[in-house]
């Protein structure tokens, strides 16, 4: 069996007394598009943040291509406060900062778009190339790395072309319309040369037509850049359209898992979304 590209084991995230994510386990395989869905406040973004190193999970482990990248167990104050399960399962502590995770090949976008606001579209993508520099502080300052710099410029242009933003390259990133900002965020993430792309509500704020375009776009870049995709989304059309598998969580707990068709018919899912029928 080939290794999963991403695997979460018993991830629990507790803020004070609130358990935002409760013992979540899931995996993404090479070349798959996997969606994580759930009602508002179900803990989807929190789960994302545990993978990308923004939060340190209270308990649980994350592996990337079989290699352990994040690991934690309840410590300090949390030892007594901890309300999740699998308390004593893990002993190792591994808390990389987000840049380390990105360097491994996991890139992300943000729910509430976070572009570099004083920079142009082109510069936004160029900044993400910094990760793969070979120049050091001195060679870069003395501009002895012009060859690499040229390559980076070239690649940034290619990426902008791939997301169809070449004409806007010299505009201020934040002056773009919403849909384009989303595409720019994806281009920027691609510039870090990821193998796994995490998309946090890529269709938020889009109309049905734009969402359709986005579906095609995600499939397209997945092909073009040989990606695996893990996404959070509210637009069911998009999720059902492109996902290979879907995980559903509610109140931080996994309530269903399967192909789009399976999940659609799952009574637990319907209850979570529509409320309990009397």
């Amino acid at each position, binding site marked *: 069996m080939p290794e999963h590209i991403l695997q979460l084991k018993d991830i629990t995230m507790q*803020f004070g007394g609130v358990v935002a994510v409760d013992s979540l386990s899931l995996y993404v395989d090479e070349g798959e598009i996997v969606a994580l869905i759930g009602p508002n406040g179900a803990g989807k*973004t929190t789960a994302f*943040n545990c993978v990308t190193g*923004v939060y340190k999970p209270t308990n649980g482990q994350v592996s990337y291509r079989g290699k352990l990248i994040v690991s934690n167990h309840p410590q300090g104050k949390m030892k007594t406060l901890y309300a999740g399960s699998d308390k004593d399962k893990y002993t190792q502590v591994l808390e990389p900062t987000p840049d380390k995770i990105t360097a491994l090949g996991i890139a992300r976008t*943000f729910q509430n778009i976070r572009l570099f606001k004083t920079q142009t579209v082109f510069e936004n993508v160029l900044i993400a190339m910094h990760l793969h520099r070979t120049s050091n502080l001195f060679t870069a300052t003395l501009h002895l790395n012009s060859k690499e710099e040229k390559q980076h410029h070239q690649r940034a242009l290619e990426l902008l072309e791939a997301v169809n933003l070449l004409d806007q390259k010299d505009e201020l990133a934040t002056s773009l319309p919403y849909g384009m900002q989303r595409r720019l965020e994806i281009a920027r993430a691609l510039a870090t040369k990821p193998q796994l792309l995490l998309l946090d509500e890529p269709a938020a704020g889009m109309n049905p037509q734009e969402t359709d375009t986005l579906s095609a776009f995600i499939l397209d870049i997945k092909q073009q850049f040989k990606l695996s995709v893990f996404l959070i989304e509210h637009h069911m059309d998009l999720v059902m359209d492109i996902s290979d598998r879907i995980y559903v969580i509610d109140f931080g707990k996994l309530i269903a898992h399967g192909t789009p068709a399976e999940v659609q018919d799952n009574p637990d899912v319907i209850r979570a979304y529509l409320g309990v029928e009397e």
Partner: protein
Amino acid sequence: MDFIQANLPYLLAGISVGGQYALISIGYTMVYGILRLINFAHGDIFTVAAFFAVYLSATMPLIVSLPLTVVLTVVLGFVVERVAYAPLREAPRMSIMISAIGVSYLLQNLMWYITGGLAKQYVTIPWISSSVTLWGTTTKMVTLVTPVLTIILVVVLVQLINHTKIGMAMRAVSKDFETAKLMGIKIDAVISITFVIGSFLAAVGSMLYFSNYTAVTPLAGAMPGLKAFVAAVFGGIGSIPGAVVGAFIIGISENLLKAVGLTAFSDAFTFALLIFVLVFKPTGLFGEATTDKV
């Protein structure tokens, strides 16, 4: 016994200075709690209050001049907020902090201009400035009055914040600025009142502080101001009891350092303490932790 005898003056001075720092640091901590602003000009307002007292007392009896000093200081604090901070409400936090530094610079230069850069003799307040002997140590009355007065004022203030409507508004604004605004709290009024209270306490603190010294110079308040801020951070910024405890700790320890002959490092010690606290317990003694949303 000899040891105590020798160090008692330092301890008394420490408690006294601590109380004075406490009165200043409340102004810092309240403003920070509400605006997330280090009001760099607060120490200068404290100094200006001293000059108000000096110049007013030259022409009128103390019974008039001292209350008037308090009133004028409060007006100054109010005006500074309105002119220099209120227009920057929507600006990045760095801008408003720079504005505070600008106000501090302006106030210092104004004081220099008016005094001609000379030290001015501070007013002698009867009773408060008189000497008193305690366990064989001679000190000024102000040394004994300060901690008592500080604690009375703090208790009153805490009651005000916990049990009045305006106090509730203040707590709401410091908890969540945006939501408080949406709930119909008049933000500008709350901020103004915060500055008024802060300036009032600074004026009282100024009278007590400078009664200990013979003269006041335009830069005399800069260092106590910074230390009071450190006290506020030490106690956990935003927390009034924290600021008071922090101020007493700093006041006492810097005077004890003087007692053991490390006078040169008494200022540096305060900042070393600050950095120590920031690194190991950024929320201070009584502060609350906050998390950022991504």
